């Protein structure tokens, strides 16, 4: 417990010692404003956040607090209205839609709350989707996919369709998919919301293991305070504002 507290008071520094000093994420003064029927809605208000290259943070906040918006901007799905966003050293603040698409393909991993596996593809094929839409180095991708499936304990389920997998297994396939392109940053959106307490704990432990063994940074969005045990740091967000 004390280790985590100490680390929490040193935001911005690398977690458990990766030699890479480029932060996985740097957000400076990021604002996201929507115009909804003549009114301006501020989804994110001057967010400043630095994430170490292999740091895991839990992003905690109630519904509508802006955590999804922050993740969307960090993951290159949305562009900020104001401010600077750097992921793994790449400045994506002013990227065009096309550039963001490429960036997402090559540098970021997503694990969605609703898992969103492609229903007509097997577990292995779901992992290979990223290669199919990208570099097309088929051989290397297949090797990596099989390796990930083994690490995630899914080798004997590689040929199953999502409809033949349990909730936890589907979640693990999604994690594998997020790791396929060796991203600088992985974004987890409520990974335990569909799982019971025990499975949920197992899942987050698995996430932490996978991230740490690869030295990959992660943001875990959750409204479940229990998850914060597994993160290096917890960041709270309310009404679009981050509290340190």
């Amino acid at each position, binding site marked *: 417990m004390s280790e985590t507290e100490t680390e929490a008071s040193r935001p911005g520094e690398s977690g458990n010692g990766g030699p890479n000093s480029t932060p996985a994420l740097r957000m400076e003064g990021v604002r996201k404003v929507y115009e909804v029927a003549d009114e301006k809605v501020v989804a994110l208000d001057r967010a400043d956040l630095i994430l170490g290259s292999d740091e895991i943070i839990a992003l905690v906040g109630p519904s509508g607090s802006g955590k*999804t918006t922050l*993740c*969307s901007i960090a*993951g290159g*799905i*949305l562009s900020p209205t104001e401010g600077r966003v750097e992921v793994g050293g790449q400045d994506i603040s002013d990227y065009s839609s*096309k550039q963001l*698409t*490429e*960036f*997402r*393909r*090559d540098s970021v991993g*997503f694990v*969605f*709350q*609703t898992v*969103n596996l*492609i229903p*007509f*593809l097997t577990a292995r*094929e779901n992992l290979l*989707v*990223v290669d*199919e*839409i*990208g570099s097309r180095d088929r051989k290397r991708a297949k090797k990596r996919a099989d390796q990930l499936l083994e690490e995630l304990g899914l080798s004997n389920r590689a040929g199953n369709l999502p409809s033949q997998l349990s909730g936890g297994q589907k979640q693990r396939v999604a994690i594998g*998919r997020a790791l396929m*392109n060796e991203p600088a940053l992985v974004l987890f*959106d409520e990974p335990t919301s569909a799982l019971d307490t025990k499975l949920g704990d197992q899942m987050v432990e698995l996430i932490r293991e996978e991230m740490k063994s690869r030295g990959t940074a992660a943001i875990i969005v959750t409204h479940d305070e229990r998850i914060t045990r597994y993160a290096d740091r917890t960041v709270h967000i309310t009404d679009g504002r981050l509290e340190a």
Partner: protein
Amino acid sequence: MSLALKELRRQPSRFGVATVILTLIAILLMFLGGLLDGLTAGNTGAIRAQQADLIVFSSTSQDSLVRSRIEPDQEKQVAAVEGVAGIGELGSAQLGGRIEGKGPRDLVPLVLFGYEAASKGLPEPPTRPGEAWADDTLEAEGVERGDVIKVGPARSPVKVIGFVNDTRYSGQSTLWASLDTWRKVQSENRPDARVGPGVSQALIIQASGPDSSGLAQRIDEATGGLTSSLTEDETIQALPGVAAQESVFNQIIALTVLIAIIVVALFFALITVERIGLYGVLKALGAGSGRLFAGVLLQAVIVTLIACAIGAVAALALDAAIPAGSIPFTATGARLLGSTIFLLFAALIGCAFSLRRVLKVDPAQAIGG
């Protein structure tokens, strides 16, 4: 793209209804085309069999064989024109034929031609008087080699010495006899339209060079404007009903293609809407709109090709099953290929209506379910 293929293979039911409807449209398109081709063949066989570079009519005939008369001295003028390599007289008589074994009132409408120039479509004219080649549609009427057909009200006897293929005229079966036989039959049955020796209805011209239109002009000048020289195509277009028939059928075919566009547009718009969630996820993973749309196009093309393949098989089966001479239907490779190209074109345009929807899919909706 292989994602699109996998989806087709593993979720075929999703595309089932669209495929069935496109198949029905393909069959309709190919049947209409086959009917048009069959009717046209039945109208124009006799003309096409001549393989003429030019056909010369009299200028007062309005390009109609039956109203045309070419006198011998006109023929001499035409033969003297530079560029005329071959010249053959042609005459016709439209009469009813009585076939052995059929009742006295059961007349078969036919056209008796007199000709002298053989071609790829027609063998040398019969040497003996009263003999003729018969178009093979007469076989379906029960005519056999050696049978005598009694032609016209005067019941002029014409003996069938063999059969030729694809030589019908204006939908009627034909007999091909020597010019003398034709003149005799004409005099016996249409005494008011008697044709003297050396007189014919049209001249079949083989040109020595490639410039047919230049030759046509020279021929008409040489006869002092008393002739009208037409190419094979022009002659066919002047046949009664041919142009109108083509026009009507082509309008129906165009309408059918339009319906195909609407069908593809509707079905693929529906399929796209069903997949918006999937597209959102794929875009979040880094797939560009272009790639996603290419997948949609690929699926539309494959569905269309399957529909066309089934349609083509159905058309060929119908062609084989229909007995000669009953329904004017013929399935040609050109028509089947043309119909397929029309439908592919319709599929591509139909898909374009879904392009905007694919472009507008927002990857952010995949997050925060």
